[in-house]
């Protein structure tokens, strides 16, 4: 009885958002007393990462009406996680983060199903990702974000007018924290900038000059990087350093300590060693909570339309007071990952060499000396001579055959283009469609009319 009451009370505020009309609602919002249940029934959300942000995200999403949640994380729980990754207990150390987090949230929020995946994000195929309506990211690396972004954008299709086809849009909400700073952003591929459109927002990692490490170390971090980058190779010829292997980390720590003593430097500790080598900045629980809350709210807004979504990048700084700023970044229309590219319709009888010629004459491209690459296969390289020679035999083959007889696909070309007498080198994405092949141009027509 008390439980049933609590259960009702739990959704009271959420229902106010979903069951009533409003003035700043998103496009196509239809308020309804059953909207919350529909979200629970129809929406599948994937949470990538079950660490500091992931724990918060799972809790927040489960309490926001999402009922079909999957979580993926390859990491296991460490003692140092316990201060902020609040779904984990001391006896969980060594177990999968995804599995434990899923179990704990399901125990606390009835009616929620969380499926855990204890593996790397690269281990799942594209179909796995395509099954979700929305992907929420709680990650700590640029590489992983970039990977998920490229996967999500790979579902995106454009119609003949270079407009994104709505049902191919895979929305993402990305959260990130570093100490007292954090960001939350909404990525609607084809509409708002994707991760790759403004990857330059991320500052480059601080890197010390090797010679400073070798000759004139001045800080504890210098000693650690010396042990990590120079001493390791000297002592373990050929064996790769593994930052996740405690034996390796311990070795680097003890070598760094020796070096620090030699130069009279203090401050080398095991946790600093981990921090420097893995580039870790101490995590703050409240930053994670704030950023995760913003992300979960955006996810709810995207699926329900109960309010306009963040547009499109929120930064938070809690170091001195609280600074929150929202910036409306613009897309890179030439983005190779999410951009529309240039639509080119071809006959199946076109050879690679004819195709290359065509790129030079194309009114929007004027591409001279283009090199062509398709899904990791370099079809033709203009330079260096050694690669030109290896790819030359492709020139006489049919492009349709070289692309595995697919009706349509994306291909990339780089070359030089001339505009107002100025030559610039460029890399272009092309959407190649073969005329008269089933699933090719006919598909595009359907996309246009829908």
């Amino acid at each position, binding site marked *: 009885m008390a439980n049933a009451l609590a259960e009702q009370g739990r959704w009271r505020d959420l229902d106010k958002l979903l069951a009533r009309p409003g003035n700043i609602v998103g496009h*196509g919002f239809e308020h309804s007393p059953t909207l919350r249940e*529909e*979200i629970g029934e*129809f*929406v599948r959300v994937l949470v990538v990462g079950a660490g500091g942000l992931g724990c918060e995200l799972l809790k927040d999403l489960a309490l926001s009406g999402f009922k079909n949640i999957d979580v993926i994380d390859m990491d296991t729980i460490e003692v140092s996680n316990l201060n902020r990754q609040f779904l984990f207990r001391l006896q969980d150390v060594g177990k999968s983060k995804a599995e434990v987090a899923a179990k704990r949230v399901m125990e606390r929020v009835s009616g929620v199903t969380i499926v855990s995946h204890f593996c790397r994000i690269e281990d799942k195929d*594209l179909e796995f990702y*395509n*099954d979700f*309506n929305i992907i929420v990211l709680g990650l700590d690396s*640029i*590489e992983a974000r*970039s*990977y998920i972004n*490229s996967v999500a*954008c*790979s*579902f995106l299709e454009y119609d003949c007018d270079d407009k994104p086809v*709505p*049902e191919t849009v895979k*929305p993402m909400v990305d959260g990130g924290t570093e100490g007292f700073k954090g960001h939350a952003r909404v990525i609607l591929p084809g509409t708002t900038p994707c991760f*790759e459109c403004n*990857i330059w927002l*991320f500052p*480059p*990692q601080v*890197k*010390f*000059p*090797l*010679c400073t490490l*070798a*000759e004139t170390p001045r800080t504890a971090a210098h000693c650690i990087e010396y042990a990590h980058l*120079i001493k390791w*190779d*000297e002592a373990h*010829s050929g064996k790769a350093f593994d930052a996740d292997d405690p034996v390796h980390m311990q070795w680097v720590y003890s070598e760094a300590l020796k070096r620090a003593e030699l130069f009279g430097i203090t401050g080398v500790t095991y946790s600093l060693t981990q921090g420097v080598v893995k580039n870790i900045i101490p995590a703050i629980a409240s930053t994670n909570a704030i950023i995760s809350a913003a992300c979960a709210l955006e996810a709810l807004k*995207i*699926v*329900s*339309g109960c309010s306009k979504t963040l547009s499109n990048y929120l930064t938070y700084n809690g170091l001195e007071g609280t600074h929150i700023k929202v910036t409306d970044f613009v897309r890179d229309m030439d983005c*190779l*990952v999410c951009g529309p590219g240039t639509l080119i319709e071809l006959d199946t009888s076109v050879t690679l060499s004819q195709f290359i010629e065509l790129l030079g004459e194309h009114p929007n491209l004027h591409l001279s000396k283009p*090199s062509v*690459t398709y*899904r*990791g*296969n*370099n079809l033709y*390289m203009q*330079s*260096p001579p*050694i*690669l030109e020679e*290896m790819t030359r035999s492709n020139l006489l083959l049919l492009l349709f055959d070289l692309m595995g007889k*697919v009706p349509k696909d994306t291909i*990339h070309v*780089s070359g030089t283009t001339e505009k107002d007498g100025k030559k610039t*080198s*460029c*890399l272009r994405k092309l959407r190649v469609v073969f005329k008269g092949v089933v699933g090719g141009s006919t598909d595009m027509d359907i996309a246009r009319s829908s």
Partner: protein
Amino acid sequence: MINLFKIKGQKREDAANANGRAPVKKQSAGELRLHKDISELNLPKTTTISFPNGKDDLMNFEISIRPDEGYYQGGTFIFTFQVSPSYPHEPPKVKCKTKVYHPNIDLEGNVCLNILREDWKPVLNINTVIYGLNLLFTQPNDEDPLNHDAAAVLRDNPKLFESNVRRAMAGGYVGQIYFPRCI
């Protein structure tokens, strides 16, 4: 978007029944940028490039530098390049495979070139790095030493340094360390 998701669920079932072709992963932005870099390479005449894994793996390649002036004239030095998917956000990893007596390259093949670490910028490219490596052979410098002994000799006794370089390149000992022939 909820209405769209409802339709989409239905459509996906249809597509699965129709046995639709599963999409394949696309090339990373880093790979594509590297493709551009490589297709625009303008190598100095001292340098050749090779792709040990064939034409479709541009992320791992080797270059060979044969300096035509300076202390290292006549030697051949091989460098391996490892480019990560986050290129050009991250610089390529470069190692010298040829054991060399050089103030800025250590005996493990680590290379002290500013644009490979602290001064790397995404606007730089593979060509810039190759020119930088060439510069190391024409202008070795004793101010950023990785091989401390070689740097000290270059600074204090350039004549001795020159003969040490010759001896190392011909295949021989400098002090306690043996250098295989690379001429």
